[in-house]
């Protein structure tokens, strides 16, 4: 495989990641024929097949402040998933319904049939594996087991229906981990494939001939999808099939390719530290080079919940890491912050749709390219008046587009993240949404001002300063400043005791239709000026007003959306300026 060029397609890139895992001695990755499954309990057997014990194997992990129990991930013979109502026992592991003939589904006769199927499967291996002590004990156990005894097992209430594996007392490893059992399992899978000649063909991923996968292994870990897993490649309704082909033969992918890409993707999605949610999409970042691991974690942090984390120290460290990375990217010395800037880098966003997964976005590039785009985005967002030092993480910005987090349109969130990652224009709908929010609650805070600025620069090619620019040539900006000044005078004249200020009543209309609002506001202003207590105040405010009005030729009847954005930024800048302590040689304004 060519290491330098990133793979273009999603499946080849995932397969490249599988190979990276294979080469990594620290990573446990399933071989073809095996899979990693969540196991809750183990059945411990005596060599004569009698039951020694039934033990919980779940692990306690620290999740934030709480401790939770999670099932253990164990490499087991691959059952290939279940679909439909047929009996399909797995080899050497299964849920208690199959393995012990009792589950929580309340249908004992069905469970008994399942147990019988499980027993028959293992009996069919009996002669082949007669010299394996563990497996022989398992067979004897299945001979003698009465499903009714399950209810008496310790902790049964909690473990009923969940996955179990088998172990021989006093032996290290599970029954299925013996080399003999593994080899027998692989032989059986191979001969099954031979006995039942499947369709072979050309895999569209590798271009090699292989047995074609009729169904692809399912993928779990995508938020909002079916908990038992969903599929990227699936043809579950007949309207999706073409040319008389059934199921996944519509898209010929070899079984080995299908196994590798799903294993790699499941691995990525299972890792809490590299899976983030943006809108309704679950996003993962990866590279097919080990050396880019630090870049992966920086990207994840940037797109994840950057705020609202439980551990402040860890949060601070993350923020510092992200900031160091962004600074390095802006100064074109990325190599200082991360190990391998030229590594191929992939971004995959998956969102659920019924039992299928939809590729919301798929972006390919190098670490370096993506870093540059992030740096540009952050630079365009740069705005005076940041409250805390946190960079403006994506989720923080998206929050400003809706009243509540749950109201953020998923499509919008996805498109916005795509724009940031691909360095293209932001979705116009987001700009509209922010303006609507400002009109609705008459508030403009730092994130809103920042995002308006980024929009005006990127989508409208306007020049927008970071802080107050008294000489800004655009009238809309000066109108914003004027509004801020009028509001300030009103506040000062009434000692801030008003319930409703001109901002509450006129903010939105002043931005959209200045001609119908400003004449009235200026009249009001005269009145407020008279109420200012200090002579000095009055003179200073009058001078400032004169300076601003001098830059405005007329009040437009109507302002388009982008000018309204500029109005709000002018307002925000002027307002920031009022509250910024002045230096000695800038005395034309009063301090608060």
């Amino acid at each position: 495989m060519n290491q330098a060029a990133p793979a273009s397609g999603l499946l080849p890139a995932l397969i490249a990641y599988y190979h990276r895992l294979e080469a990594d001695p620290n990573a446990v990755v399933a071989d073809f024929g095996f899979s990693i499954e969540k196991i809750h309990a183990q059945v411990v057997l005596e060599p004569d097949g009698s039951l020694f014990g039934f033990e919980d194997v779940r692990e306690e992990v620290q999740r934030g402040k709480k401790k939770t129990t999670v099932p253990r991930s164990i490499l087991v013979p691959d059952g290939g998933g279940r679909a439909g109502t047929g009996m399909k026992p797995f080899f050497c592991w299964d849920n208690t319904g199959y393995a012990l003939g009792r589950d929580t589904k309340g249908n004992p006769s069905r469970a008994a049939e399942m147990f019988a199927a499980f027993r028959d499967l293992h009996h069919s291996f009996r002669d082949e594996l007669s010299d394996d002590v563990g497996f022989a004990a398992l067979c004897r156990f299945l001979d003698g087991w009465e499903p009714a005894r399950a209810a008496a097992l310790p902790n049964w209430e909690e473990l009923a229906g969940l996955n179990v594996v088998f172990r021989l007392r006093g032996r290290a490893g599970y029954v299925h981990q013996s080399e003999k059992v593994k080899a027998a399992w692989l032989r059986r899978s191979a001969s099954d494939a031979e006995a039942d000649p499947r369709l072979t063909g050309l895999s569209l991923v590798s271009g090699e001939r292989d047995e074609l996968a009729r169904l692809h292994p399912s993928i779990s870990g995508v938020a909002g999808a079916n908990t038992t897993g969903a599929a990227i490649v699936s043809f579950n309704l007949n309207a999706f099939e073409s040319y008389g082909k059934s199921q996944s033969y519509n898209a010929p992918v070899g079984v080995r390719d299908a196994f590798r890409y799903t294993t790699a993707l499941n691995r990525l999605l299972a890792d809490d530290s590299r899976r983030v949610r943006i809108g309704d999409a679950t996003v993962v970042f990866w590279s097919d080079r080990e050396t880019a691991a630090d870049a992966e974690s920086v990207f994840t942090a940037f797109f994840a919940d950057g705020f609202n984390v439980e551990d402040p120290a860890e949060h601070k460290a993350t923020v510092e890491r992200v900031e160091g990375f962004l600074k390095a990217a802006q100064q074109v010395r990325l190599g200082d912050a991360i190990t391998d800037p030229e590594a191929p880098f992939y971004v995959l966003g998956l969102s659920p749709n019924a039992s299928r997964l939809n590729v919301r976005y798929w972006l390919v590039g190098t670490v370096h390219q993506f870093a540059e785009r992030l740096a540009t985005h952050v630079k365009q967002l740069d705005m005076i008046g940041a409250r805390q030092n946190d960079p403006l993480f994506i989720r923080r910005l998206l929050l400003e587009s809706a009243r509540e987090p749950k109201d953020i349109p998923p499509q919008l969130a996805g498109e916005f993240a795509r724009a940031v990652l691909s360095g293209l224009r932001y979705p116009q709908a987001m700009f509209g949404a922010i303006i609507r929010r400002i009109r609705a609650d008459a508030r403009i805070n730092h994130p809103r001002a920042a995002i308006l600025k980024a929009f005006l620069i990127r989508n409208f090619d306007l020049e927008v300063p970071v802080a107050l620019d008294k000489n800004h040539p655009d009238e809309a900006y000066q109108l914003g400043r004027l509004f801020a000044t009028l509001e300030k005078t009103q506040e000062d004249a009434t000692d801030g005791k008003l319930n409703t200020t001109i901002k509450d009543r006129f903010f939105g209309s002043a931005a959209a239709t200045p001609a119908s609002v400003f004449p009235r506001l200026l009249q009001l202003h005269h009145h407020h000026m008279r109420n200012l207590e200090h002579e000095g105040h009055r003179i200073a405010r009058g001078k400032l007003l004169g300076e601003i009005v001098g830059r405005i030729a007329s009040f437009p009847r109507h302002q388009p959306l982008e000018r309204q954005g500029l109005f709000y930024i002018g307002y925000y800048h002027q307002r920031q300026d009022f509250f910024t302590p002045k230096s000695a040689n800038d005395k034309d304004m009063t301090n608060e």
Partner: protein
Amino acid sequence: MSVRLRVWAGLGCFTRPEMKVERASYDVITPSAARGVIEAIYWKPEIRWVVTRIHVLKPIRFTSLRRNEVASKIPATTAASAMKAGKGRLGTYVEEDRQQRAATILRDVDYVIEAHFQILSGEDNPAKHLDQFNRRAREGRCWSRPFLGCREFPASFALVEEGEALPAVPDELKVERDLGFMLHDIDFNDGMTPRFFRAVLRDGVIDVPPFDSEEVRR
């Protein structure tokens, strides 16, 4: 005997077979989609169009959307038994049979397709077919509206006259990019088997190997 046709549209979706249900597009137009565009302008059973080269004139950009579609086809057997019996229900009610499907599609696409044709039967007069194609393309005539991958994405088209220079390739395409295996066409003579080739974008151009060549995997 080669023709060049420029096609462009706001949206296009050249669905990858592996992501055919929740559609995701290939990076560029496939040879079979290009053939469809050409055939919409001029085709008759006497000739076969062969796409030889695809020029990509705009940067590759994606967007995504959701559409309402249906879940099932009307089975042929139902139609057959209704014919036999002289009655029966053939309708499908879209409101009851909805499936929403998401799609990640291309936007702002602009290509020049280079193609030539082979004469399969009839009079061996290539100039006649060539003239007809050129005349029709020049006048903007077509049998059916050419589209880019889906009928919802109709394409505009214009003939690129002989000797006429092509527009400049955008800078970001002036590299060599391996696009992976891409659908070439369906082999209708062999159980409708899809055939794939390794698509490589070199300075904005993809050379399409002939359908029966070594480079097309079978």
